[in-house]
């Protein structure tokens, strides 16, 4: 279980958000909504441990999650705005690197997002939507990370790919995983609670 207590985030001198509390049980999903600049991306980065909270604590199973950041990193997958792909490497090489880091099956993950026909193309020639799919394929590697933090996961995706993402999210939640997603678009996340920033 993930619990946030009175989290606050500063950007320079500006308070992005403060006094933010929520709890997330296994198998549930949380949708972050709010206007541009409301702090959705900052909250996801904070939850990932990439930026420290200005105030408040983040608890994982009742323990301070950010005390051991390497352990926290291992239990989460973070999908940022950027796709984190190397243009010079092929789609397969990009994914195989993460498969070697985390374990998991790169071929199955490529198949899950229908990327096998593009697997040997360098990432630089892929379209924006295809790159997004390749970034999402990291989630399909299947290595067990219970917490998924997704920043606008469906930007640029066609409807078939959104459905594939939906299947991926449903499987993850059925296995007890948690999803926190920031979005402006409808997401295939049934019975997700909404947190308005």
């Amino acid at each position, binding site marked *: 279980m993930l619990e946030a207590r009175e989290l606050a985030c500063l950007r320079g001198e500006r308070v992005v958000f403060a006094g933010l509390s929520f709890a997330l049980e296994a198998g549930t999903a949380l949708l972050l909504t709010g206007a541009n600049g409301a702090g959705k991306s900052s909250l996801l*980065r904070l939850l*990932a441990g990439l930026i420290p909270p200005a105030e408040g604590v983040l608890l994982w199973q009742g323990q301070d999650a950010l005390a051991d950041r390497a352990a926290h990193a291992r239990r989460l997958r973070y999908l940022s705005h950027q796709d984190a792909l190397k*243009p*010079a490497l092929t789609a397969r090489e990009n994914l195989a690197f993460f498969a070697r880091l985390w374990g998991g099956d790169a071929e199955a993950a490529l198949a899950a997002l229908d990327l096998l026909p593009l697997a040997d193309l360098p990432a630089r020639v892929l379209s924006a939507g295809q790159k997004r799919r390749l970034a999402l394929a990291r989630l399909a590697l299947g290595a067990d990370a219970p917490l998924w933090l997704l920043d606008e996961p469906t930007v640029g995706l066609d409807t078939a790919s959104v459905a594939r993402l939906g299947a991926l999210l449903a499987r993850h939640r059925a296995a007890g995983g948690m999803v926190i997603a920031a979005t402006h678009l409808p997401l295939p996340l049934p019975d997700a609670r909404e947190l308005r920033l």
Partner: protein
Amino acid sequence: MRAWLALLARELRLALRHPADTLAAVMFFVLVAALFPFGIGPAPEALARLAPGALLASALLAALLPLDRMFGADAEDGSLDQLLLSGLGPAAVAAAKAAAHWLTTGLPLLAATPIAAAMLNLPVEAWPAAIMALGLAAAFLSLLGTAGAALTLGARRGGVLLPLLVLPLAIPAVIFGAAGIEAAAAALSPRPYLLLLAALVAAALPLAPLAAGAALRGE
């Protein structure tokens, strides 16, 4: 360790896909070394006297070239966040970057050392010592440079700030390296100087990645 090797392999693969970066550093090294004969004129003894210091300075300047993109490219495309969340720890990420920098920039410079040494009229007896001194000095610079690159990441004009930060710290490597080459040119043993240089590398080996890791984490 497996994850660390995966990261190192990725860095080397990327360097192979962009061979121009390595080639640019090697060309820069040879060209800077070639400037000295033009400036000093056709006096072989004067040139040979300057050769050790000129070799070290040219090699360190050339090795600086790829440093400002070391973390910059990964920060821009979001890869850096993923590396910091890879479970490796920021210091291990920095150590892999430093190792890759030495393998893809330091080692190729050694291959070009005989060319530069010949242009500077360095006696052939001193070439092995020159190659060893440059290899160690380049390793020292890779380590310092990784810390510098992590510190200047995201800074405006980071590319200018980086040499200002790193080069003063590299002075001991120039002193010991040049002294080693000079000793070999005078038919003395370069061993004590090279050992001192190796000691510098040994000291930087744990410290520089830790400093770089702390800087990356603070980003």
